[in-house]
């Protein structure tokens, strides 16, 4: 029983990490129809940058900010510089992000090397707390906490503010938004930056929860994609539920059926897609 | 036996009957209580100011939008619940205001696709499609009819606007429809292209029922015998072309006594 609670907690905290990635990805897709395949690489590079800052300053908060902000800036460059060139052409946009991920992955290998790197959270976060029958690492609580805070902020911003209304309108009907004179280009850039920022943030957190290594980018991207497929493209609610589904199933799978670990991800995803090709909360296919 | 079935048996079912059709989008009523009958073989027009709901009406007739209430009968069959694909198989054809052709494919291939849509060959995998004589013949005939023969090997993306619109009509006709909905065939055409389009439309087979949305009154006058006028989603006038042209109320609607 104790093990089960532990596994469940693991699954939920992993879900938190996945949510940080999945939410950005699903927003970028929902609003801009861009499948950002560079999202995993953004996670990795953001994490590496956070690691570097941590190694230099031993200040975890600074490392977190460095990872997130650097990727936010990268997002501006990517969106303004490259993505604009192929605006409105989904296949090209997708292929472009794919190319970017190739380059990022190789450059990251060159700069940060092939050895796995990780970050240790400072002070109290490095210890564990007794919760009921189990002792659980504080760093995991921290990650979960960050994810929940981000989720709440996103919910408030997107659901309640004017800026959020613009985003929601854009997701629903892009041509209409254009016609209404909403500065859609700026909204696009803002959402893109938000996505890369969150990915970078997730990267630094991932550096402590997991480790960073060449290939971590595609691994985490796969998970983020399953989250978004299951939850439905463009839906934040879907990202939450999807992250929980994926996080829990993955952990249970690894714990109880290690030989078929990916099946525990595969089967539910396929079943959900057979039933609802648009994902749990996605818009239905025309 | 319903009146429609009796008519059908008599072989003279009207091509289209709309029976108190409504279409609502959330709080907005785009089509409100439209009823009309178009006889088989008729040449009919639907006109009205922008935003009157003409294209929405077409979308409801073709099945791309479901009617919120009311019934639609196609050649005596109630198609209200049918998908647009099934309505196509019942003889409904349609062109679009924003052309929907296949840009990277040549004119020949565009037509070939449309002709193949009906044929059993469409799953043939090991034989070049052009070698099917019946398909190639149908393609050549359509190209000829629509003055596209010199452009057969050009990608559709290369065609002039007028030629694209002609291709659009050709594609619809390839399916051998019994009722053809034409959505603004003259839109965006230069005067010369309009003349060609007019001639082309007049040459369409006489047993084909035609319903056309248009703004160009010359095109309407030349091609169409009777007209329904739509405004704010409702039928506000109908009659022969001559009657409508003389109708003061219609002129007012167009001259925009309201904004």
């Amino acid at each position, binding site marked *: 029983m104790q093990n089960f609670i532990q596994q469940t907690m693991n699954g939920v905290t992993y879900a938190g990490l996945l949510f940080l990635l999945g939410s950005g990805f699903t927003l970028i897709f929902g609003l801009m129809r861009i499948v950002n395949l560079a999202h995993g690489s953004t996670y990795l590079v953001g994490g590496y940058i956070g690691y570097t800052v941590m190694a230099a300053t031993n200040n975890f908060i600074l490392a977190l900010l460095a990872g997130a902000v650097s990727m936010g800036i990268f997002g501006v460059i990517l969106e303004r510089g490259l993505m604009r060139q192929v605006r409105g052409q*989904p296949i090209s946009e997708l292929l472009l992000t794919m190319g970017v991920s190739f380059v990022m992955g190789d450059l990251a290998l060159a700069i940060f090397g092939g050895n796995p790197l990780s970050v240790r959270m400072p002070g109290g976060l490095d210890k564990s707390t007794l919760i009921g029958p189990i002792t659980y690492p504080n760093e995991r609580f921290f990650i979960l906490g960050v994810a929940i805070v981000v989720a709440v902020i996103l919910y408030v911003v997107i659901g309640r503010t004017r800026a959020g209304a613009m985003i929601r309108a854009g997701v629903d009907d892009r041509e209409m938004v254009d016609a209404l004179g909403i500065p859609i280009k700026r909204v696009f850039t803002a959402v893109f930056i938000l996505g890369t920022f969150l990915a970078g943030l997730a990267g630094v957190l991932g550096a402590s929860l997991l480790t960073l290594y060449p290939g971590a980018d595609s691994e985490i991207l*796969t998970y983020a994609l399953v989250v978004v497929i299951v939850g439905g493209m463009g839906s934040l609610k879907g990202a939450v539920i999807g992250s929980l589904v994926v996080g829990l199933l993955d952990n249970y799978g690894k714990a109880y059926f290690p030989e078929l670990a990916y099946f525990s991800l595969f089967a539910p995803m396929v079943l959900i897609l057979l039933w609802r090709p648009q994902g749990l909360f996605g818009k239905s296919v025309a | 036996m319903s009146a429609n079935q009796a008519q059908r048996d008599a072989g003279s079912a009207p091509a289209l009957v709309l029976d108190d059709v409504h279409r609502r989008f959330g709080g907005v009523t785009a089509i409100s209580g439209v009823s009309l009958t178009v006889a088989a073989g008729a040449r009919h027009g639907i006109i009205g100011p922008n935003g009157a709901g003409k294209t929405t009406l077409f979308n409801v007739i073709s099945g791309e939008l479901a009617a919120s209430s009311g019934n639609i009968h196609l050649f005596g069959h109630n198609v209200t619940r049918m998908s647009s694909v099934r309505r196509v198989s019942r003889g409904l054809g349609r062109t679009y205001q924003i052309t929907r052709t296949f840009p990277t494919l040549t004119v020949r291939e565009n037509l070939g696709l449309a002709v193949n849509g009906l044929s059993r060959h469409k799953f043939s995998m090991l034989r070049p499609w052009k070698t099917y004589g019946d398909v190639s013949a149908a393609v050549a005939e359509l190209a000829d009819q629509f003055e596209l023969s010199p452009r057969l090997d050009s990608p559709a993306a290369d065609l002039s606007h007028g030629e694209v619109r002609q291709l659009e009509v050709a594609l619809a006709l390839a399916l051998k429809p019994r009722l053809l909905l034409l959505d603004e065939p003259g839109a965006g055409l230069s005067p010369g292209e309009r003349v060609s389009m007019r001639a082309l439309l007049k040459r369409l087979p006489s047993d084909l029922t035609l319903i056309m949305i248009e703004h160009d009154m010359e095109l309407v006058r030349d091609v169409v015998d009777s007209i329904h006028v739509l405004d704010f989603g409702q039928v506000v006038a109908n009659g022969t072309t001559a009657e409508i042209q003389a109708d003061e109320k219609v002129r007012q609607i167009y001259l925009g006594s309201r904004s």
Partner: protein
Amino acid sequence: MVALVVAAIIPQLGSSFYVSLTLSVLIYGLLAISLDVLAGYTGLISLGHASFLGVGAYGIAYALKIGLDPIPAIGYALVAVLVTALLFGLVAVRVRELTFVILTLALGQIVWGLAYRWVSVSGGDNGLPVPGRPSFGPFDFSADSSYYYLVLVVFVLCVLVMWLVVHSSFGLSLRGIRDNEARMRTLGYNVVVHKYLAFIISAMFGGVAGVLFAFYNLYVSPTMIDFAHNGTVVQMVVVGGLGTLWGPLVGAGVIVFFQQFVSIYVPRWETVLGVIFILTVLFARGGLWGGLANLGRWLRVRAGEPPTSGASTSQALTEVDAASGSGD
């Protein structure tokens, strides 16, 4: 086009290194061409295509391991590919165009993950050895140079079949689906069925490439179907030319060239390839093959011949992409 086939037969005279190299170009070329049927012609970009090579390769390796004779083993492998394609296709073709891309990525990763974890079948990260090449009657293929001919024959046959498919009525319908899926529906086509068939056909030829690969490499491991390799296949198709059938072969040649030769002089050759990929997407959607075709056209015009059908594939493909971008 025929000239290229002739050229391909010549390398047999080279050293064994070049034979081996050309072999891998042919095998990956076959995989890339099979992907082109799905991606270039039908417009469904699959990021998990290498997994079909994987299933084919693992299939034959496993079948041989459990003691099947070569011919039934090949059958076993191809059936495995078929079953995988039937299952994956069932979900994959019913989703939206862009969801398809990421779904296939996930599916490809799942196959890779299985290759890693299902140790009893796949040998985990140790992989599976392939105990030598089969001999058919008088033909012994243990030497690379003789195996080369077998691969060449299979390659040509496969591409021939794919060429026929792509030029058939069915192939025409695939291009129609790529250009304007909605219109295809109104023309009376059951788009899902067509996509499903395209998916299966594409997968099967990928599986054939897998069998050829297993006998070439004499060893199968998960690395061959990891994310990077899936990406590489897409690179081959895009850089070579989407929707050109032959382009991906050129693309395979370019990528293998980079892997084998450029890597010696340029440590960051993968970055260079990535940049080339980006530039292709931005400025040359017709890929290298499209570029060659344009060059040929330009040369012919200069020689005085009247210009033939105008728009280059790349421009038209961009328009299709833009049109689908506003619709979706």
